[in-house]
């Protein structure tokens, strides 16, 4: 459905952020994109959704195809109309508008008739949003905001959803709740999801395939189950020290062991 081959992204023409990233997102699957801060995960998402252009970023090499058509030169609005909706990190809701207005805007590109029925569908998924319909989203709790965001994205009936760290800054319980909903979305609505996450454990659990990125390049990829077993992933992303027991901060060494991506 979505294929990136050798995508290279530069900010302001100088700073090389992505150095030849290639990945595939098959139809109806959940694909996870792991990596530490600054590995280039969010940039990859923004390259796909075209939002890079508003930040002086541009795709300088390689290509991004979505259902056959190339979309790396297309305006963000057109890309969204083709069914790729990005849920940005940091719970970027429209603060001063109410939940309902957020959702209505979400369905802006859909025919007005269907907006009403879609709204019901979202409320079915997120009952808590129904109570807070008329509240100004600025005053909602973190979890509720995240739900509103995902709901807003669902309003556009996307064929591909780009979720950027949905679990950031949320309590574990709410993270579990949101992940459950994401899984239901993929199962019931057949939505394809590209999930960017720091929380590797949760992401690996619900995704079918996963890529690991490090300073602008994919350094490891494979089925999520296999990756969860991989030595280095356990060491560096799942915080499992030697012999599988959990690492605690007291043992942190002042020197850094060299990663062996062999």
């Amino acid at each position, binding site marked *: 459905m979505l294929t990136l081959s050798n995508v290279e992204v530069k900010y302001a023409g100088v700073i090389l952020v992505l150095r030849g990233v290639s990945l595939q997102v098959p139809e109806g699957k959940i694909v996870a994109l792991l990596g530490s801060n600054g590995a280039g995960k969010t940039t990859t998402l923004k390259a796909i959704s075209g*939002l890079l252009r*508003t930040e002086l970023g541009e795709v300088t090499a390689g290509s991004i195809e979505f259902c056959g058509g190339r979309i790396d030169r297309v305006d963000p609005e057109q890309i*969204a109309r083709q069914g790729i909706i990005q849920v940005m990190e940091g719970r970027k809701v429209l603060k001063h508008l109410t939940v309902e207005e957020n959702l209505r*805007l979400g369905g*802006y590109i859909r025919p007005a008739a269907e907006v009403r029925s879609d709204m019901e569908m979202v409320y079915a998924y997120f009952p808590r949003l129904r109570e807070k319909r008329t509240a100004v989203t600025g005053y909602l709790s973190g979890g509720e905001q995240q739900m509103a965001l995902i709901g807003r994205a669902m309003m556009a009936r996307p064929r591909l959803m780009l979720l950027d760290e949905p679990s950031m800054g949320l309590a574990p319980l709410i993270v579990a709740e949101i992940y459950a909903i994401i899984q239901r979305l993929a199962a019931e609505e057949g939505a394809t999801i590209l999930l960017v996450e720091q929380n590797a454990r949760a992401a690996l659990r619900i995704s079918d395939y996963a890529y690991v990125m490090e300073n602008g390049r994919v350094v490891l990829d494979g089925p999520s189950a296999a990756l969860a077993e991989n030595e280095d992933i356990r060491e560096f992303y799942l915080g499992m020290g030697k012999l599988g027991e959990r690492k605690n901060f007291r043992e942190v060494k002042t020197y850094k062991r060299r990663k062996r991506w062999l």
Partner: protein
Amino acid sequence: MLVISGMMNGAIYGLVALGFVLVYKASAVLNFAQGYMLLFGAYLFWFFRVTVGLPLVLAMIAAVAAGFAGGALIERLTLRRLIGQPLISMVTVTIFLSLVLEGLVSMIWGTYPLQHVAAFPESTIRLGKMVLTTQSLIAFGLALLAAGALIVFFRFTRIGLAMRGVAEGHQIMQSMGISVRRILNVSWGLAGVAATVGGILLGSTLGFQLGMSHIGLLAIPAAFIGGLESPEGAILGGLLIGLIESIVSGYVGNAAGVPAAFVVLILTMLVRPYGFFGLERIERV
């Protein structure tokens, strides 16, 4: 007597302030060129009416259409490339725009006042001991009408909602498939219309001359007192400013009106920073 004429002018200021609010609501940019768009719109109307010789109504429509096109053009040429840039560069560009507009007007039509043209039949009506000119009555009516239309537009239409969304964040809206460019274009176009209509009315009452841009500056305090975000606030702010301006210049004389308006602006900023109708800014870290 001063009260009435103040209210009349106030309506025009309100209308122009509406244009200011439109731009702020959609792109959080303080449009310093609003006063000069008024000037340009007025001269356009004069051009259609006198040099081209169109009948009154037709000239007005042509001027308004040109006003819309002018506003949209400004957005298209300059602000479009600044979408990702910090706010400061957008605001400074509007400041330079005011220079360019003033320059264009003085280049095309020279710097001396133009021959007087009345937009509406000139007659006076006596109401009790007060003499009212039809001009200002029509202006008053028109201003209220425009404000009403805009209020409805913002509350209930899709584009209005989208406009309020764009002010929150360009990227968020783009990610939802809403063309931020088109929304900004429309909002600048409407601001152009408001400025042109204001220009026509002001021109017909005070005459077409460069000084009009100075009056146009009054739109800013009017909009601010109203709260920068709400159309109703802009109209009420305009009326208030009109009132103050006429009373102060009546008693103090020598055009004390304009500075007085800004004194009021600064006072309101102290008392109610978000104006009477503006909404509290939500800050979340």
